[in-house]
């Protein structure tokens, strides 16, 4: 009798993943070429949320474009606001007051925590761990309440203005942040308890979506993906902006280059963000939050009503076709958004609108090496890798 063959014959198959799929968190489409359950090739098709923000940047004044920056990475809109405002301020050559710098830093780090909470919740949910989602979203809810208290909106914050902030933080801001700092370590502990040494979690994430150090540099990835591959590059440390050069914090790095190491890096970043918020809150100075020259920033309401200069400045800032002019030249300014390096390349022709506004989104570049990460893994791992990159479609497509 002939020995039966136990080798399973498999066919090449094309699988359409998305554009609407619960695990894509937005409209992404991936065309997977499969051999059995093994991914042979993954081809992302993007652009479903393309909204032409770069083109609109050429038609809107700088302050108007801030509202559009919210819509890019809608989970960390404050980080986008801050990144854009920093870029324009450097192009003009103005320095914002100390208090504004501190508030921006605190909010940038709180946004990082909020973004990472969405990431860890949905990432775990995709892989099948439901409970972590509940803890993560509770913490996020507290943060969004805080943002709402500060900016008046939960998602579309639009909190920065060129030269400062929309308004000063409310009186009980410090208490709210302090309360959150006391509350959050417990959430973090719960999350570590649920996931970090969880056997299923480790099996699903370790060795999956491997990206070597060389590939990571070659593909230009940034943020936790790059640091998860063992490269200690963080814009906050390498090109300090705001007050990051005065703060004591560490850049977590993990060498394994898989989904698990990106998870560990992000979890450690949460601790570092808390440290930063704590330090910044401790020395939060008093004073104005807007640049003194009201050519660029709105004057206080009392000045508008009581003085002719204030009135003129107010109208010059508000009226269509006016607004401040920005010196001719070009600049590239990057900030560390929760997903990686968020860069703005602005070319100015000396008018009140950008001549060319280029956004270098972290998600776009991180996602471009997706094929490299999932090749040879199983179909179920595609979701794990997608979760570890934390792709936000609004930012990917702009």
């Amino acid at each position: 009798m002939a020995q039966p063959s136990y080798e399973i014959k498999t066919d090449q198959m094309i699988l359409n993943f998305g554009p609407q799929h619960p695990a894509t968190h937005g409209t992404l489409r991936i065309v997977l070429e499969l051999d059995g359950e093994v991914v042979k090739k993954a081809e992302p098709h993007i652009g479903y949320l393309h909204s032409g923000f770069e083109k609109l940047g050429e038609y809107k004044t700088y302050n108007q474009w801030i509202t559009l920056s919210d819509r890019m990475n809608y989970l960390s809109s404050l980080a986008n606001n801050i990144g854009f405002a920093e870029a324009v301020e450097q192009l003009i050559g103005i320095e914002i007051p100390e208090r504004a710098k501190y508030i921006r830093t605190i909010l940038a780090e709180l946004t990082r925590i909020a973004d990472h909470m969405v990431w860890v919740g949905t990432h775990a949910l995709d892989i099948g761990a439901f409970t972590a989602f509940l803890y993560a979203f509770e913490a996020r809810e507290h943060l969004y309440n805080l943002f709402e208290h500060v900016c008046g909106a939960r998602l579309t914050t639009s909190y920065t203005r060129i030269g400062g902030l929309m308004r000063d933080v409310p009186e009980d801001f410090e208490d709210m942040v302090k309360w959150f700092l006391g509350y959050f370590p417990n959430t973090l502990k719960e999350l570590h308890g649920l996931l970090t040494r969880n056997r299923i979690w480790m099996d699903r994430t370790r060795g999956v979506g491997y990206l070597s150090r060389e590939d990571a540099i070659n593909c230009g990835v940034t943020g936790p993906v790059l640091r998860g591959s063992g490269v200690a590059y963080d814009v906050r440390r390498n090109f300090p902006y705001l007050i990051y050069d005065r703060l004591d914090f560490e850049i977590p790095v993990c060498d394994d280059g898989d989904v698990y190491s990106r998870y560990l890096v992000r979890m450690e970043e949460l601790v570092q963000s808390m440290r930063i918020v704590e330090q910044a809150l401790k020395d939060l100075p008093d004073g104005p939050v807007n640049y003194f020259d009201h050519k660029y920033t709105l004057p206080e309401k009392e000045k508008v009503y009581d003085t002719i200069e204030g009135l003129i400045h107010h109208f010059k800032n508000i009226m269509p076709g006016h607004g401040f002019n920005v010196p001719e030249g070009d600049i590239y300014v990057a900030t560390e958004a929760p997903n990686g390096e968020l860069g703005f390349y602005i070319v100015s022709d000396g008018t009140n609108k950008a001549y060319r506004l280029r956004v270098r989104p972290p998600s776009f570049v991180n996602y471009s090496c997706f094929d490299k990460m999932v090749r040879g893994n199983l179909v179920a791992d595609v979701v794990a890798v997608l979760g570890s990159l934390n792709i936000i479609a609004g930012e990917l497509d702009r």
Partner: protein
Amino acid sequence: MDFETIKKRISEKFPSVEFEEFRNQLSARINKADLLDFMKFLKEDKDLHFDYLTDITGVDYLKMEREPRFDVVYHLYSFKNNVRLRVKCGVPEDDLDVPSLTPLWGAANWLEREAFEMFGFNFVGHPDLRRLLLPDVFDGFPLRKDYPLRGRGERDVILDLK
């Protein structure tokens, strides 16, 4: 490594490169014929070691009335020296061929595809130069200055699809 050293090191090898400093950022302008060699030199040189490609984009200078009409703009970063460099390369309207950087950096793949669909640069040597964000049937290059914000564009494409 400060800007003077970088300038000196580059000028030794590529004397035609023009430098520009604005707001403490260094840009180098290179002509199109030398672009690939220049990038290779920047990447592989032991002192400069600009081994990280951050961004590729284009600028259309139509309204600023400048020759050549387009610029391709590259942003490089060196892990070794912790310094950024911007490389600009002029592209005239009648010759949109630009050498592709995909042999040097994997990151160039999608970034060049985006620059292609937005400005129409033809990246010679790119393995897969298709539209990325826009539909395949899209006509026109939206980030060019003569492409209007509204009007032409989407409507024509939808008619074609019928």
